[in-house]
């Protein structure tokens, strides 16, 4: 298979599993997607569908005591990452591919200054002296619009607000000009106004640096505002993929339709807590991932399900114009009102 021109990241049939007391958890069960240079790709799905595990698999940060990439391929600039040596992998992390995590309150080291935590990444990958790296850290803090950046360098994370910490994480992640930035729910823990600011900032920086972004979220509102293409995941599998307009114009998977119905209406968007509610309004429960799922994972909750759905896994069908969907009953779904 040749490397498609323009794809910086190609994930094929990724399977990541964990050994637990209840058996083997198939957290990611055969996911494939591409990321083009400079593109913003969204990955959406309910809590526990394997979004974070997909992201951690790309960076090979799955805890080795319990988890492993059981099968599949991850190619970065044509280079296979699943078999790459640990040292080479370390040179990629934080340099060519970096990551922002879900929890800004706990993702920074509480006993090291912000300046140190940004500068150490630069020292590690750019082979520059500490003084120059600190200068770079200052520039980055300035770039992510942290006021009084010079002074902030010597502050500790507990002296910063959640929004500021996430800015620091962004500054850190972008400090070595990575080709790929994986942002795992970067705004979930923040309140709505700050969410919008952080997303805006990420998009602006992307324009400047040309970094491709994988934006992981359970919030279709965020997807609509920020991404170009969307992968919808359910129970460790990809169920639909489409350019963002196509997905919102005509969602083809019953699960995606359920998610859309669950989007909070704009006029009630900011609830008392100031956060968007999580998407759990689809009736029924996510299947347990410790048992192999024979047919379509969504079958127990799906209004379109037929006998076949519980037995045979639906293949991904090309619905045209880059729109793919894994559903046996796609024609019936298409014909019904969304």
């Amino acid at each position, binding site marked *: 298979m040749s490397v498609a021109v323009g794809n910086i990241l190609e994930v094929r049939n990724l399977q990541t599993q964990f050994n637990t007391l209840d058996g083997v958890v198939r957290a990611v069960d055969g996911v494939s997607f591409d990321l083009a240079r400079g593109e913003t790709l969204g990955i959406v799905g309910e809590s526990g569908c394997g979004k974070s595990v997909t992201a951690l698999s790309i960076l090979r940060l799955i805890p080795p005591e319990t988890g492993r990439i059981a099968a599949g391929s991850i190619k970065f600039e044509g280079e296979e990452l699943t078999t790459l040596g640990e040292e080479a992998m370390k040179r990629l992390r934080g340099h060519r591919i970096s990551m922002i*995590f879900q929890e800004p309150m706990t993702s920074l080291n509480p006993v090291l200054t912000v300046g140190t935590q940004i500068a150490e990444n630069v020292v590690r990958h750019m082979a520059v002296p500490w003084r120059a790296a600190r200068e770079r850290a200052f520039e980055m803090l300035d770039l992510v619009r942290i006021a009084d950046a010079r002074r902030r360098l010597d502050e500790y994370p507990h002296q910063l607000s959640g929004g500021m910490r996430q800015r620091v994480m962004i500054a850190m992640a972008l400090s070595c000009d990575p080709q790929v930035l994986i942002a795992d729910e970067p705004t979930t823990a923040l309140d709505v106004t700050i969410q919008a600011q952080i997303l805006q900032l990420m998009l602006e920086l992307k324009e400047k640096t040309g970094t491709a972004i994988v934006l992981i979220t359970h919030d279709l509102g965020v997807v609509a505002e920020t991404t170009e293409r969307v992968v919808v995941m359910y129970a460790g599998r990809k169920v639909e993929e489409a350019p963002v307009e196509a997905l919102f114009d005509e969602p083809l998977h019953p699960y995606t339709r359920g998610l859309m119905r669950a989007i909070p209406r704009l006029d009630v968007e900011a609830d008392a807590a100031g956060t968007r509610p999580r998407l759990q309004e689809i009736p029924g429960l996510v299947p347990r991932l410790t048992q192999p799922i024979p047919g379509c994972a969504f079958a127990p909750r799906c209004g379109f399900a037929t006998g076949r759905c519980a037995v045979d896994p639906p293949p991904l069908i090309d619905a045209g114009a880059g729109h793919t969907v894994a559903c046996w009953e796609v024609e019936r779904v298409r014909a019904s009102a969304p």
Partner: protein
Amino acid sequence: MTAYIVRRLFATLPVMAVVALFVFFLLRFAPGDPAAIIAGEDATAEAIAAVRAKLGLDRPMVEQFFVWILQLAQGDMGVSIFSNLAVTRLISQRVEPTVALTLSTLFVAVALAIPIGVVAAWKARKLVDRLVMGFAVLGFAMPGFVLAYILIYFFAVQWQLLPVQGYRPIGEGLWPFVECLILPSVALGVTYMALIARITRASMLEVLAQDYIRTANAKGLATDRVLLLHALKNAAVPIITVIGIGIALLISGVVITETVFNIPGLGRLTVDAVLKRDYPVVQGLILVFAAAKVLVNLIIDISYAFLDPRIRY
């Protein structure tokens, strides 16, 4: 920070005052009449009364206390009943061996325990971890004096590499000084080593599961930087606490160790003074030990503030 340290130093004064009060009354109410002991076995009642008057023991208790405290404030701990030497002088002569032994034991324990604990946590549940921690349990279970005799048998008697016992002041040269300290430090230190290694492993394991360690790994940092800076600095507070407890135990433990290894330090002075009911010396020693523990406690507290910026001072 300086203001914090000064404030903490002042805060130790009430503690020391309570200790002083305790020491004073404890010995006043202890059985046995010091005046009778000093005057000798077959002294007359008049002779004993004379001694009592000379020592001021016939004065009201409150007056005695204030006289004692005032002298103490001037660094005067009184005079030994037996040798007639100033208590401060007796104690300061014996301080060096005890401090040397405590510090060298601590050094042996910490220098081994921290790398062991870090490696064990890093390789948790792997072979290295099991081996290293197995040794730690063994070290913890083995009484120090048993190990002392084993070490003495091999290193001193069989192979004649190190002296059997004794102490040489540092003034007589570095090697003779170090040579005498090796066996006692190892024998004493193994227990503390095991204790500190275990807490290091436990504390490191907890820290290694934190989100910020994943962040550090996501930056591709070298393993040693992740372990020794990102993790160990966060794991340090419980480790330092246990080291502090270790020092306190060591200070109390010198009495036995100095006896086993025949080291002329404060422990031996304590034994002698207690057996002879040399009250001024016992009082002085209790105060010195208490002050040492308060000081250790203070240093530990201050080091927390250095290690963790979230601790307010």
